[in-house]
């Protein structure tokens, strides 16, 4: 039996899946595609592979993180240890997601991958830094 709260690695994996599926869904919304295309694109949303408890705790952490970003900080004394560990897992998951989908330096739109030749949002070609 796994206590989801204590499985920070499982929570991190669930958060990465949440980020990826939200990314695909946001692209579907932005496309303004026909219902058939939307259906086809919906099939690209990665399925959830973990037990459901991980996503539920992940959503709680996202809410907590949103509160902190809005300046409604939770005193560290009020934060449960699992929440503190979870917020660290959230930071790792977000960092991995942002590395896979860098933001366009011109308009901020997240890219499909790190190797996009041009931003589909603004057409900017200055996405990749010269190594």
């Amino acid at each position, binding site marked *: *039996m*796994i*206590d*989801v*709260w204590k*499985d920070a690695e*499982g929570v991190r994996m669930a958060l990465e899946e949440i980020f990826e599926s939200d990314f695909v869904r946001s692209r579907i919304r932005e496309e303004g595609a026909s219902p058939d295309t939307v259906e086809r694109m919906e099939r690209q949303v990665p*399925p*959830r*592979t*973990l*037990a*459901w*408890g*991980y996503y*539920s*705790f992940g*959503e*709680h952490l996202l*809410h*907590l993180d949103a*509160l902190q970003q809005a300046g*409604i900080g*939770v005193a560290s004394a*009020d934060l*449960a240890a699992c*929440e503190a560990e979870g917020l660290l897992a959230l930071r790792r998951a977000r960092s991995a997601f942002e590395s896979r989908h860098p933001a366009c330096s011109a308009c901020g739109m997240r890219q499909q991958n790190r190797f996009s030749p041009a931003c589909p949002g603004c057409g900017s070609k200055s996405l990749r830094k010269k190594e």
Partner: protein
Amino acid sequence: MSAIELKQSRVIVIEDRGKQYSFTLARIAKKLWLRYFEGILSTSENQGGKRVDSFDSSAARLDLVEQSLVTASGYPLPDGKTSIEQLDGWKGMLPLSHRLGVANAIISVSASEPSDDDPISLGTESVYLDAVWSADEKGVMRKFKGLRHNFKSPTSEQQRRVSRDGSRSRVVGGSRNGKTQWLGAQATLAEIYDELIVSVEGYTVDGVEPDRDAIVEFMDTYHKVAAVDVLFAPAAPKVEEEQ
């Protein structure tokens, strides 16, 4: 208007094949309610990326009745016995459908729609419940409607506790193919009730409207949990279809 007397023992009457059976229950303490909530089996499974939920509270309901039942009447007794309690293991002899019927009556609590006359006052939040409580002297079970619980507005810290404890779970059978067992936030909801409650309407303690301390001490834990559950539920926006 009649009110629920919180210190009174409860009498549940059920009818089966034209005959009435009566069950007297002791006041159900918080500890017993928490044991009931812990006994509920609420699980979710991941089947091909889709969530499939299941819920089973029958064992917890039977245990709750067994723990709180004081006496029952309406059943034929063997020769030489004058009451059912004289029989060893009498609770287990009661028909299963009767015990489940009693349990269903004691957990019959639901959110109630406030009437248009009930004003909304800032800084105070009111929640209304409908509930079955106890049979009257004639053995008639009635539903009490519009039981009012007035709360202080919850803080973001209290909301966070509800969110945190509502997401608590264990996974049985591996993180990928396992089943999620939800642990429930009822104990937290009951705690938050005690922190926020200001006054109630539709309940009495020793025949008078209870003050805050009496509410915290005597309010039925199931009602506390139901009321705070409603308090944290979002109100539905008014949406009209576009022409």
